[in-house]
């Protein structure tokens, strides 16, 4: 067998084995050592990352992609389900990125969750999530993808509700599961369609379409699945609510890996979507709406984690727009670069929160630049990368997306919304930095604030390096699979930069207004709309079920059930029967001796006459 193929398959299966080993160790009845989380789990992930670099380099050198079919699981005469891993361009790049980010997060999490008595269980959950994610990404058939899909959903539920004594955490976990379930309906619909019409769940087999079938229905199902999993508009409230979980969970699941699963699904199955204009337009418009709506909501939030969560949602909308533009490789590039700086933003916020004794409100922070310079510098680097500062990681993906958007033949509405959302990104990023790092502290100096723990510094350092160079490295080494349009007017070329700069200047102006007085009755309409998340949770979570249940209660108690049905049923029958009953029971007057005498008389007479 050719050496590179052998090396690739063994390395890739070694990655999965390395990740699964700590799980099997934890199944033993002996208690785990105290630092099992650090010595076993983090080491496993680090080793897995290093091992996964090997296939990456082979792919860079030779362009080798492989499909490993391990086990024929359920095979009938006409339908096969196998355990089959596909390591192509997308999974070979994503696996090292995800493992690198997870390694940094696990090292951070050991410090963050140090006082938690169940830290080993926490790390086990994170590891299980990681395995499910890798399975999702490397799946070669829809069934395995579905296993990974559901796996990440369940682990998200368990991890969001980690502090299960807290009601908001339980509600948030339930929200995540229910919204994801609505999306899963779409995925199952698509899988059923593929099974009945294409007779296979293998991805490469689905791409051959000899009958020229109309793929609109399964594609809409897949878009619904991506809407649920990747928090697009309509099924988005679970993502900000998911910030109830610990910060490492937010950093791993709800910024880098799990929420991109929906987008990844669309990227994987993109050849089906290329010719279907309905699906592409749906993606485009949905993505544009999501990115603007969530960026608007992020502008007035006061919880640092919620701002970053809405930022994630906005970037996911941008990825959806890219898919709608028929550029899956740009969306994938954005997934990889976004993982780095978003995870870093979350880790910085986690460090700040822990240092301020669990304070998450940015109105009560300030002056962190002189107190925790490392963290606030990383926060700045991450925010710059997020807004698409030239030549940092986010620039290569974001600018390419906006250029593709500007030069495509599509509706101006999606374009305007996306550009507006890009400027909002700059505004809320500056808002975070202004409230957290600049100015003077707005909290009491009770807990000691320091950064002298290498468990914080090293992950931040690694992710900062990633945020700076990842975009450059990936763009340099991988050719784009679709030809980008290179020549466009100057204004279009620098539009992303201009729009972000505009946002930055507006935000600076607004920030300088915070120390000046303004009118006594400001118009609060837009602020209220943004702060209450566009009234979406208020209406959908509260008003609709409330109206339904109140109407149901009124029908049941006053209108129909306890009034008319009682009258039509038991009580009405009673009122009909009572006169008859009283009539019959009033006929006899209680003269027992008379009745008994008559009875014996007639009895003896009857005997007498029958005997003779």
């Amino acid at each position, binding site marked *: 067998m050719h050496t590179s193929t052998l090396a690739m398959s063994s390395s890739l299966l070694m990655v999965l084995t390395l990740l699964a080993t700590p799980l099997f160790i934890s199944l033993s009845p002996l208690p785990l050592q105290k630092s099992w989380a650090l010595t076993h789990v983090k080491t496993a992930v680090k080793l897995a990352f290093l091992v996964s670099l090997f296939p990456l380099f082979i792919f860079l050198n030779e362009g080798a992609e492989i499909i490993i079919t391990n086990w024929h699981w359920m095979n009938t005469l006409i339908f096969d389900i196998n355990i089959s891993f596909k390591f192509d361009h997308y999974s070979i790049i994503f696996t090292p990125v995800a493992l690198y980010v997870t390694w940094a997060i696990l090292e951070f999490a050991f410090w963050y969750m140090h006082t938690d008595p169940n830290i080993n269980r926490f790390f086990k959950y994170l590891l299980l999530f990681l395995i499910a994610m890798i399975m999702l990404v490397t799946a070669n058939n829809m069934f395995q993808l579905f296993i990974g899909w559901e796996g990440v959903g369940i682990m998200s539920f368990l991890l969001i509700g980690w502090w299960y004594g807290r009601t908001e955490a339980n509600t948030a976990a339930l929200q995540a599961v229910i919204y994801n379930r609505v999306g899963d309906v779409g995925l199952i619909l698509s899988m*059923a*369609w593929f099974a*009945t*019409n294409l007779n296979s769940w293998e991805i490469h087999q689905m791409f051959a379409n000899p009958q020229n079938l*109309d793929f*609109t*229905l399964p594609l809409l199902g897949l878009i619904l699945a991506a809407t649920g999993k990747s928090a697009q508009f309509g099924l988005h409230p679970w993502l900000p609510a998911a910030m109830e979980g610990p910060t490492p969970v937010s950093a791993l699941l709800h910024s880098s890996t799990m929420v991109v699963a929906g987008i990844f699904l669309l990227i994987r199955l993109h050849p089906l979507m290329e010719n279907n204009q309905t699906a592409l337009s749906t993606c485009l418009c949905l993505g544009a709406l999501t990115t603007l709506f969530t960026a608007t909501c992020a502008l007035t939030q006061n919880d640092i984690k919620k701002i970053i969560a809405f930022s994630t949602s906005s970037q996911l909308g941008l990825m959806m727009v890219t898919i709608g533009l028929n550029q899956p490789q740009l969306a994938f590039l954005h997934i990889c670069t976004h993982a780095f700086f978003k995870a870093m933003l979350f880790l910085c916020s986690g460090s700040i929160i822990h240092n301020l004794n669990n304070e998450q409100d940015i109105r009560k922070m300030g002056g962190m630049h002189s107190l925790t310079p490392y963290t606030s510098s990383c926060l700045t680097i991450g925010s710059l990368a997020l807004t698409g500062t030239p030549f940092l990681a986010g620039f290569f993906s974001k600018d390419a997306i906006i250029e593709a958007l500007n030069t495509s033949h599509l509706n101006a509405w999606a374009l305007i919304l996306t550009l507006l959302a890009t400027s909002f990104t700059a505004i809320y990023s500056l808002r975070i930095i202004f409230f957290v790092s600049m100015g003077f502290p707005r909290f009491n100096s009770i807990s000691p604030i320091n950064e002298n723990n290498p468990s914080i510094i090293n992950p931040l350092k690694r992710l900062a390096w990633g945020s700076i160079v990842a975009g450059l490295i990936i763009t340099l080494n991988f050719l784009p699979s679709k030809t980008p349009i290179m020549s466009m007017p100057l204004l279009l070329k620098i539009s992303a930069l201009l729009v972000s700069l505009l946002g930055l200047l507006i935000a600076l102006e607004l920030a300088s207004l915070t120390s000046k007085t303004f009118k*006594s*009755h400001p118009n609060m309409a837009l602020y209220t709309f943004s702060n209450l998340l566009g009234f979406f949770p208020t209406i959908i979570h509260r008003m609709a079920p409330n109206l339904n249940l109140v109407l149901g209660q009124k*029908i049941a*108690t*006053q*209108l*129909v059930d*306890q*009034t*008319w*049905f*009682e*009258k039509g049923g038991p*009580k009405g029958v009673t009122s009909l029967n009572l006169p008859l009953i009283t009539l019959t029971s009033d006929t006899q007057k209680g003269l027992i001796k008379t009745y008994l005498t008559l009875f014996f008389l007639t009895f003896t007479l009857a005997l007498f006459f029958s005997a003779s």
Partner: protein
Amino acid sequence: MADYREAPLASRPKTLDPAEYFNLSQDKRRSETERATLRAQLKRQYQMQLNNPHRKELIEDPALTRWVYARANPYNHFRPTKKTTLLGGLFGVLPLFVLYFVLKTDRDRKEEQIKAGTYDRRFHLSS
């Protein structure tokens, strides 16, 4: 508080309403005083019970008792009037007929289409 402006959908509280303080008639003042006396008596009763150190049970609220009784015994005070007949028919009887007619018409239309061969099975899985 001269420039106090209430929230868009809220009403002005009674203590900030200028009509409360100026140009009041004698009748209104008398009725307000009576109402205030009654409220003060009720409040005094409640406060005596609340601050009684030997009280072990809950303070009985007659309004709550009446409400709970009304919620538990609708039929005993039910009388078929025009309003109750109308509402009962609207929510209990009408849906049956409406649903029957709607579903039957839809089903018949589908049958016609199937018989004529024009039924659109584009999005059906079992084609």
